[in-house]
């Protein structure tokens, strides 16, 4: 501590160490938040449903997605990535996940939303298994904190069924 440089160095080192500790505490404080998000997805219409020339089924649908993810946000939340996936089982794969829509929620004010949209990404099966197929629509989200590790969760909404015939 005898010279300007030594004092500046000691101060900076200690200040950064404390900053790291504060960030750790901020990340730890997220554990006290118990989120209660809600989500509903309605399939308003099957726009078309066909077999591609290569044999894969493809379906286009209109969705109404509404969700309230406000409780996911804490003071340490940077943003939330959310996507809606169709999940179903086929003889070949025990779990197929197809992302139909996604979005980035930048703040708590935008976390309660509803959107009326056709599927943003194409709903194509690996094969021809979609006729009359029961599927789940699952809302997944990944919370990106300002400091600390990301965490993810989902809401599974079962009980959707595709038509028996192409249209």
């Amino acid at each position, binding site marked *: *501590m*005898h010279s*300007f440089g030594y*004092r*500046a160095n*000691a*101060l900076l080192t*200690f*200040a950064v160490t*404390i*900053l790291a*500790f*504060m960030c750790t*505490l*901020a990340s730890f*404080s997220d554990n006290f938040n118990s989120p209660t998000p809600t989500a509903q997805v309605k399939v308003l219409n099957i726009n078309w449903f066909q077999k591609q020339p290569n044999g894969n089924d493809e379906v286009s649908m209109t969705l109404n997605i509404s969700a309230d993810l406000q409780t996911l946000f*804490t*003071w*340490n939340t940077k943003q939330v990535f959310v996507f809606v996936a169709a999940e179903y089982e086929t003889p070949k794969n025990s779990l197929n996940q197809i992302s139909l829509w996604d979005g980035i929620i930048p703040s708590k004010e935008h976390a309660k939303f509803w959107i009326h949209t056709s599927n943003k990404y194409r709903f194509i099966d690996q094969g021809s298994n979609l006729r009359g197929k029961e599927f789940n629509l699952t809302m997944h989200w990944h919370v990106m904190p*300002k400091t600390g590790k990301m965490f993810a969760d989902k809401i599974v909404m079962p009980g959707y069924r595709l038509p028996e015939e192409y249209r």
Partner: protein
Amino acid sequence: MDWQGQKVAEQLMQIMLLGFAAIAFATGYIMGSFQMMIYIYAGGVVLTTLVTVPNWPFFNRHPLKWLDPSEVEKHPKPQQSVNANSKKKPTKK
């Protein structure tokens, strides 16, 4: 900066930084604003730097009192040359 000043500067630096960190974290958590925590802490670091890093007169209140040069003649260093010579002579023989 004298010895006493160095001790005070180091203690002041640690106490001020920890204090600002506690205030910043509490304020940020209560207001729900991470940004506020960072701003308060950054302000605290700048203030602490200004207080403890420059060599303020405050840190020089206890200057070392060196002995007057005339004291050297009054208290001569113990002469070791006699001992050294007597020890080295046997090895040379």
